[in-house]
């Protein structure tokens, strides 16, 4: 049994079944770690669904929304747009990294993952700075339902970005120590799926919080 979860199947008695022709490695289709990551992402989607349900329900019953004192506090054409562009770009560079390692281009992989990593950190720093501006405007987690929902949603998203940045750091390190090849890079696929998920959640968040 290997650490990655690829399992050696025991040989079965009897020869007349088609399954014997399949290689002893896991069944065809996506690998175990990638299926695991997809299921994990599913659970995270459900977590955010709970928070979004709270947001929409609160928004529906609290009119006007935004409340008068924060009518213009959340401005889509501000620093937050820069952060959005940065995060979307990082999804592209992440995918470039995946394509690179799929064709065995280790250098291209490291280059693109490094950029993704840096962009992820940049997003977090911009988010933190934006928070300080909002605090200055009087919008906090305790300033009413508007503030509570805003900071809860963006805060947990930020926490997930942070987790993603850590994961990017790990695969960057592993990539630099030569642990990935065209045939074996499940961790890269898994982390990139997670990173895209984080990006998609942000796009939805940004649209809902700033545009709607």
């Amino acid at each position, binding site marked *: *049994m290997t650490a990655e*979860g690829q*399992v*050696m*199947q*025991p*040989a*079965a*008695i*009897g020869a007349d*079944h088609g*399954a*014997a022709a*399949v290689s002893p490695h*896991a*069944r065809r*289709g996506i690998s*175990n770690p990638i*299926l*695991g990551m997809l*299921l*994990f992402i*599913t*659970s*995270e989607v*459900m*977590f*955010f*669904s*709970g*928070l979004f*349900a*709270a947001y929409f*329900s*609160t928004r529906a*019953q*609290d009119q006007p929304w935004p409340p008068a004192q924060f009518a213009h506090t959340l401005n889509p054409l501000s620093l937050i747009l820069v952060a959005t562009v940065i995060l979307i770009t990082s999804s592209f560079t992440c995918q470039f990294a995946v394509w690179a390692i799929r064709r065995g281009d280790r250098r291209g992989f490291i280059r693109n993952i490094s950029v993704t990593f840096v962009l992820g950190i940049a997003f977090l720093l911009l988010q933190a700075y934006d928070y300080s501006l909002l605090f200055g405007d009087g919008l*906090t*987690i*305790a300033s*009413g*339902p508007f*503030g*509570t*929902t805003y900071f*809860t949603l963006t805060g*947990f998203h930020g926490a997930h970005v942070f987790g993603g940045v850590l994961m990017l750091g790990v695969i960057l390190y592993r990539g630099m120590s030569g642990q990935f090849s065209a045939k074996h890079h499940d961790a890269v696929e898994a982390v990139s799926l997670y990173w895209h998920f984080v990006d998609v959640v942000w796009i939805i968040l940004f649209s809902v919080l700033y545009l709607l």
Partner: protein
Amino acid sequence: MATQVLTRPTTVYRSGLYEWLTTTDHKKIGIMYVINSFLFFLIGGLFALVVRSELAQPGLQVVADEHVYNEAFTIHATVMIFLFIIPMLAGLGNYVVPLMVGAPDMAFPRINALSFWMLPLGGILLLSGFLSSGGAAAAGWTSYPPLSEVGPLKSPGVGEDLWIVAIILIGTSSILGGINFLVTIFKMRAPGMTLFRMPIMVWTILVTSVLVVMATPVITSALVMLFIDRNYGGHFFDPFGGGNALLYQNVFWFYSHPAVYVMVLPAMGIVSEVLPVFSRKPLFGYKAFIFATAGIGALGFSVWAHHMFTTGSVFLPFFSLMTFLIAVPTGVKMFNWVFTMYRGKLTFSTPLLFAVGFLTMFLIGGINGAFSASVPVDFALHDTYWVVAHLHYVLFGGSVFGVFAGIYYWFPKMTGRMLDEGLGKIHFVLMIVGFNLTFFPMHILGLEGMPRRIADYASDAGWTDLNLAATIGGFMIAASMLPFLWNVFVSLRNGKIAGDDPWEGNTLEWATSSPPPPYNFDRLPEIRSERPLFDARHGRVVHEAQA
């Protein structure tokens, strides 16, 4: 007719403490899950005895004040749900699922170990509330705001926060376990085991794991929001600050209703393994059973607001209809079980007794649930002891009896020793009589108007006799643990050697030694149906009689 021996008998592999603490072997982890969950069953049971002792007579005799009583039933339910039933079934699943699908372990063994160790940690966090000045959480296991928010008459102490963190931790353990089960089941089945040849136990764990992965994160979100309200001045649920108290209930029950299927489906899986073996017939309607299970899983997401019929803000007809409809697939399963026994040849082993106990008691729980599905009737019965009767008939009469069926059935596989049948029968009789004595009177108490979660009741309410009877029953249930514990203790040392397949089982776990070697199987039999061992033993019986 002896079962063909497929592996050489191995001596019991003795492991030291360090091995147990650091193992990633699903069998050891499964056993630890079972032991840990059983310990919490006893702890939860102790709290139940506190509750029952207090309610036996009017007046406050046992607890110092109402707050302590509220802590008792809160922690009782929380421990039973999150630290006993859900992980116990996950633990039994952890042990048998890889064996039943012919895999050498779970897909992610290290995450499996992590999932386990989060449980004692969560339990300690939860119970440490008792050491704090405000005591443990006391707002009910449902923890509705505003009562669960901070405030002098609400839940100001840190006990409630510990409760929140403990459940988030335990929920995460559950989700990781669910992911592990799904990947194992989808990707690691032995050749020949198509999805429709998997044992029903595996199917129920599959559907349960889908529910766990999709629903548990939602309660995490509800608890996170409650934590923010309590500790960061949030306004999700406080109605005087722009929030909505019922929002919590909707998000909470969106998880907690599917959670009841998480608590019962694997127990149904156990019953579906035990009945065919001890009836010497296949499970009647294997495919229908699978569709019924999937149907319950899906429908289970559409009924949550039936816990909120009296709140005045629920679209009543929809939730009432879906709740009534979910009785249909449940009924299909009940009939399939009965017709498995029908025209069979039943051996009254202890596992079978507990499985039949499940059938008879879960039926009652399902029937009294139908009353609550009818909204006007629910207006009378909600938040009374009727609901306490219902939930215990399905969760105790159902799940707990299923759990014991599984323990008696798989103990020989896990330990290599048989449990004593005589002690097992004493356990069963004490338990089923005590259980009915405790919970049947609660139907009457609920109808007569006794609300839930009250520390005391008026001496002229007319509820004293039935409460006393229920308390006696509660102590009988406690007493039934004694023959069980004695049985385990004695059988571990001196029980009859089980061998590979003491029950003439149908499924792959009986195709290896008891206990299995660390890698599970040397070789597997051919898998051509959902009963590969039966086929091997009987040379693939071909004549299939249609009823």
